[in-house]
């Protein structure tokens, strides 16, 4: 019997679960953690498939009835829960889940506040009292475990510690420290590292067809699959050009031009668009930092703008990257909290100019 043969998976995780299943030492509760877009939810589903798969040679086969039903989220013994506002209707939930059916790596689009309520957990505990429908493993996947309400988390403890037989709970969270101690100590924590470039390319080609080189995109999205799928067909060229222009304007203190630039993106895409711009801006300075210390080329994020970044780094030898990153993050949080984007960006431009340090020889910009 082979396990996880066809899955693109982090080696450590593949090894660990393969051995756990072979040695019959599967725990009753796992806590998957690691940054966004590292395939935690997709693997949880695959684990559920593996445990219920009917194939004799390799599991999960992805073809048997059980695998198919789990992929379509209608297997009675496999539950997928996610934090959602209380008033969500069941057909809305179905709609949200559809994105996962198409592509298990994509992000769920949940409207409104996120919360795992005590009612949801009560329901789960009620279900746990009965046996499984099909006689196989029951798997409960709870995504967004950091959104447990305090009541829900505490009432979950008993079930989590001593669930019935063949009942596996998988909690998924981006950060370990956001989970309360009492929950954490009842689970086996499993850390998910980032995918490598090659793995991401493989996964992307499974669910989408892209003919261009997506490496710059991967770096830009910082190996976050959810983001890669979200921006796959949009690209960044326009935003990058904007950031480049913005930096040039800041460098020569042309506040009129800065204002023009900021005005030009006013109706582009609202908050999300501004945040995207700030992300690119900070990646630019990350590159500047790396170039400043002559580190490896493969760490450069903006490989498509390599030359410009190089020139920039040479022109501002005394740039205080750490402080600039701080002001960018401040602006990021401000915009996230609905600050006035134009004022915030203008302010950012002024603050950045002070931190750039004296210009050496910026021929292009002047």
């Amino acid at each position: 019997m082979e396990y996880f043969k066809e899955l693109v998976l982090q080696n450590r995780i593949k090894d660990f679960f393969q051995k756990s299943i072979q040695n019959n030492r599967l725990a009753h509760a796992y806590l998957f953690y690691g940054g966004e877009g590292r395939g935690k939810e997709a693997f949880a589903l695959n684990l559920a498939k593996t445990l219920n798969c009917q194939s004799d040679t390799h599991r999960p086969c992805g073809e048997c009835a059980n695998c198919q039903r789990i992929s379509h989220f209608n297997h009675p013994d496999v539950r997928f829960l996610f934090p959602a506002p209380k008033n969500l209707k069941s057909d809305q939930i179905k709609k949200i889940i559809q994105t996962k059916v198409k592509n298990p790596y994509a992000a769920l689009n949940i409207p409104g506040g996120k919360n795992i309520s005590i009612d949801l957990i009560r329901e789960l505990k009620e279900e746990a009292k009965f046996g499984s429908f099909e006689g196989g493993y029951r798997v409960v996947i709870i995504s967004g475990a950091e959104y447990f309400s305090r009541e829900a988390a505490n009432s979950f403890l008993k079930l989590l510690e001593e669930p019935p037989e063949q009942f596996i709970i998988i909690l998924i969270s981006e950060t370990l420290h956001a989970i309360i101690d009492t929950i954490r100590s009842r689970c086996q924590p499993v850390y998910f590292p980032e995918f490598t470039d090659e793995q991401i390319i493989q996964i992307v080609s499974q669910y989408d067809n892209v003919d261009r080189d997506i490496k710059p995109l991967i770096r830009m999205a910082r190996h976050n699959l959810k983001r890669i799928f979200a921006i796959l067909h949009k690209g960044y060229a326009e935003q990058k050009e904007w950031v480049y222009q913005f930096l040039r304007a800041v460098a020569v203190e042309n506040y009129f031009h800065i204002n023009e630039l900021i005005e030009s993106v006013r109706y582009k895409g609202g908050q999300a668009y501004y945040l995207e711009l700030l992300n690119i801006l900070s990646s630019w300075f990350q590159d500047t930092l790396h170039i400043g210390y002559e580190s490896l080329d493969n760490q450069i994020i903006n490989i498509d703008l390599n030359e410009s970044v190089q020139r920039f780094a040479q022109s501002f030898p005394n740039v205080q990257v750490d402080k600039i990153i701080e002001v960018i993050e401040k602006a990021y949080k401000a915009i996230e909290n609905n600050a006035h984007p134009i004022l915030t960006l203008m302010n950012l431009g002024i603050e950045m100019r002070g931190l750039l340090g004296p210009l050496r020889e910026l021929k292009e910009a002047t």
Partner: protein
Amino acid sequence: MSYVVIARRWRPQQFDEVIGQEHVSKTLSNAIANQRIAHAYIFSGPRGVGKTTTARILAKAVNCEKGPTPTPCNECASCKAITRGNSLDVLEIDGASNRGIDEIRNLREKIRFAPSMGKYRVYIIDEVHMLTKEAFNALLKTLEEPPEHVIFIFATTEIHRVPATILSRCQRFDFRRMAVRTIMDHLKHICEGDKINVEEEALLQIAKKADGSMRDAQSILDQIISYAGNEVKFEDVVQALGVIHQDFFFKLTELIKDADIKNIILSANQIFETGYDLNEFLLGLEEHFRNILVLKSTGMANLIDTSELYVDRYKSLAEEFSENDLIGYLQVIGETINAVKSSQQPQLKFELGLIKLAKLPQTTQIEQLLEKIDLLKKKADNSLTTSANAVREEPQKTPELSLDYIKDRWSVLVDKIAEKRASLAEVLKKAEFLAFDGKKLSVSFNSEGAIVEGEKSWIERVISSELNHSVRLSVKVEKSAGKKAKKREEIPKEEIMKKIVSKSELLHKLVDEFDLEVI
């Protein structure tokens, strides 16, 4: 039959199997032996230290067919039923799910019924801190005077959320976090029972990671056994848990010491590529520096949780850093941990944090710099005075120094000082000379003298250069010198320093490069 995790299989069934909580188990077993069983207990403490377990053992002990006994037999019908969790007399209630007043009313209704098999009805309410305020209050009357056959046992991790009125009606037992040693010993015991060979080093890592909780330790051990099978090596722990090898920290410390930023960025990249959890890594690094600090300030190796292998390396590292450096490092690491947690770009923050560490100037370096500055200042002082007073100044001819001679010259000296530090000179004018032994000049001052004490070395230098003879000051301050003149007059001194700095290019560079503040 699916696999049952270690934490559940190895749940203690006797008081003496409860590890690390001797103060609780001993008190309870003595209470049972002396027939002084209270009607309400509350157990508090962090996760995974044995609260629920002790509660179950207590229930068993009082209900065992062989009478209330500190050592339940685990064989009679009652004990077995309790172990299986289906005893009619022991009701384990999940306080977090049954938290409303209705559930408590329900409980009070049924509490009057006599036990069916054993001698007591035992109510174990776990996570009791989650009960609502109304529920707690509804419980008060029953809790104070329950029927004779009832025992309440509450267990909670958050004792501060339990109202004082409840606490005062219960006997309270605080469970302790467990020491790394205790956990290691128990894990070893478990491994022997399950016939698993485990390396000492591996156990140490697991116990450290468990952070004082036995259940955490058992979960981790379970995880590693599923990964490695029956032979657990240190390498397996490293692989399965993503533990960072101690060597890596030592390497990084070298790089930080040498301020080799390029290689630090490369190592950071290596960390990203291996897929370590950054938070985990920083916590490890923090502990690493803490170990150095502990060795530095106490010299006692038994205070740090590390294997024998590394103690010598830590010792030699401890000699290379000063305490201030280490505290500075720890501070930066702490800041970085927070920054990484809250940032949009944790990797970037992580890198910046490491770079910051490398850029922290070491105190030894600063001391050297200060010495250099002192030296240069002396030179600059001399050249300043000689150029300004070239005409007046003649090579001094002072073959002998005596107290009288100094007394004579004192006003000149004070004038000299007054040029730079007027207020200091005012104080010096009032000096009373006590003795002079060729090197040391003893002077006494009234309460203002504290300011002189603070500036002693500077004054010594001025006087020495004036008299062309090294003179040490011994300042005696008359009592009532409680106030220490802490505030220095910064402006004139700063100006001097600026002058000096502008004179020497080397100094200028130093100041620029290390972003030093001229004091």
